[in-house]
């Protein structure tokens, strides 16, 4: 019941944001907005595993790229249908291909979820640090595979041309923004629902003390697999529309370091204990970066994010949300 209300409220907020931006009539706002909202999804997805269960995933960029390249694969398949199949089969396939983006998002989610599950299954029986190291490894293995896979463009990249015509939306960027905004609402609803559920309590028990969690009857391995699968699926979903958004996709852009860094830094700076933290972190850092990109180089930009991450993990372990909560609590008891 409460979840439904939360869903409706966030949907209303999303609509206000969307129509607010539309009122300006500047396409660039949708481009900048898309990037920020995409980070909301990534940060929330990272936090479901990292913040709730305490397992660090350094491979966010890999999961993001899995989503992006699962779309590239399907889009490229669509362009080959005439060469590969007889006329009648091709005609039948062409009624569904090229697949609409929401379908690409769902497929990316399935692929990302499977990879998340596989990663978890291989490493989660071991000490926590091994999982983190394995996620670093995953990013390099997948990047190497993509670089050597000519079908999706290899190291030189591939052009992805967005359909020109749109219904309702004035531009393709606007459509992609609206889609990503909807995904952000979805991920926040999922994160918040988990927090207040039996699953959320199980995650918290794992984060605090895994042995004690087992002794209390928590099936820790299963729960961790749920978290890695869900988190991986959501990250890949965030990457699915990326080829259409950027138009020309290269391994270096899809596996970009900024995704790995931001999806850790944003929840850490915002606060990892609730759904609000990643949201606050993503909106704050994402907006700052969009503003700074205009004025300073992207390297300086990332340097600031890195420094903020270090400062926050040392000084404010519970992030901005934690700081505010402490403040409020102190005032209440005064």
């Amino acid at each position, binding site marked *: 019941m409460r979840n439904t209300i939360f869903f409706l409220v966030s949907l209303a907020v999303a609509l206000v944001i969307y129509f607010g931006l539309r009122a300006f009539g500047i396409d660039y706002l949708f481009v900048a907005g898309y990037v920020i909202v995409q980070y909301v999804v990534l940060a929330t997805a990272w936090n479901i595993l*990292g913040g709730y269960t*305490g397992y*660090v995933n*350094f491979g966010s960029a890999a999961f993001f790229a899995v989503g992006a390249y699962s779309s590239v694969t399907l889009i490229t398949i669509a362009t080959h249908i005439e060469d590969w199949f007889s006329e009648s089969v091709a005609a039948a396939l062409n009624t569904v291909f090229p697949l609409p983006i929401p379908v690409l998002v769902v497929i990316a989610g399935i692929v990302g979820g499977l990879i998340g599950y596989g990663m978890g299954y*291989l*490493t989660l029986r*071991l000490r*926590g*640090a*091994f999982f*983190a*190291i*394995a996620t*670093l*490894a*995953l990013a*390099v*293995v997948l*990047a*190497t*595979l993509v*670089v*050597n896979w000519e079908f999706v463009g290899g*190291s030189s990249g591939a052009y992805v041309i967005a359909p020109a015509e749109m219904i309702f939306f004035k531009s393709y960027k606007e459509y992609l923004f609206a889609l990503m905004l909807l995904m952000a609402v979805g991920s926040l609803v999922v994160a918040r629902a988990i927090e207040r559920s039996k699953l959320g309590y199980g995650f918290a028990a794992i*984060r605090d003390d895994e042995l004690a969690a087992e002794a209390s009857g928590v099936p820790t391995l299963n729960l961790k697999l749920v978290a890695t699968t869900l988190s991986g699926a959501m990250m890949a979903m965030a990457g699915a529309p990326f080829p259409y958004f950027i138009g020309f996709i290269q391994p270096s852009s899809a596996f970009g*370091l900024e995704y790995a*860094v931001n999806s*850790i*830094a944003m929840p*850490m700076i915002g606060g*990892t204990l609730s759904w609000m933290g990643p949201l606050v972190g993503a909106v704050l850092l994402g907006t700052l970066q969009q503003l700074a990109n205009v004025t300073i180089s992207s*390297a*300086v930009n*990332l*340097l600031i994010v*890195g*420094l903020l*991450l*270090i400062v926050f*993990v*040392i000084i404010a*372990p519970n992030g901005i949300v934690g700081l505010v909560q402490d403040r409020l609590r102190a005032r209440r008891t005064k």
Partner: protein
Amino acid sequence: MDFPVELFINAVIAGLLLGGFYAAVTSGISISFGMLDIVNIAHPAFIIVGSYIAYIFNISLGMDPIIVSVVMAPAFYVLGMMVYQIYYLSFEKRGQESLRGLAFFFGVLFVTEVVLILVYGVDYRYVEAVYIGPTLKFGFIDLPLRMLVPCISALVLFAALHLFITRTFTGRAVMAVSQDQGALQLMAADPVRIKRIAFGLSIATAAVAGALLIVIQPIEPSVGREFIGRVFAICVLGGLGSLPGTLIASILLGVVESITATFYGPSWAPAVAFGFLLLTLAFRPSGLLGR
């Protein structure tokens, strides 16, 4: 097609030389991750800093990169002790090393790389020394000095570390810290102090490893990240904290990588180390020599 025996043997020898170098690169991680249980994923960043320092002194003063690194090692030792102190006070003491400690090292890795990019750009940098260029030839076997000198230096460093760990009181205390902190207190040694020394030592090895790296290949700031998978793969495969195991695993990885690069192309080489790591974690988490 005949199997290219000569090419194969040369690939194996190049791999052996590379493996010796990997042993130096991994020795630091073997101490910090293997013995102290500190997941210092920023270790490769310190190595790259070592490379750039060797580069600066080599270009401006014409000094030998390996000698520079030996002179710089004490400074790295102090830097390492400082980093450990921050890590200890902020994370270990509060019991938050698993999440925030990891994020901290990730931040250090990342910031170092970005700073190097801002200062030196993404151009490849290299050093000059008499042993870069000439190659010893024995029949069809090539021994490039560019690989041989780092390999020998690495083995010297490795042997020195091994002697230190097994023969000195402090070294044995480091071993003890990895097994039982209580026992260490019985030895009247402060575990935090021992860990600080050991961590300083692990960073000091990065100075040398960095200089060896820039002798072997030109470097740019992001090269460090490629080494994360390698060093952890070797460290885990070698059985966490076992220096002899680390040496064997280094050489194994060096040979496999070199063969892959020779026969399938260098673009596949990075995946070898990481693939190795994933397979090790999945099937042999206690390492090659583990039970």
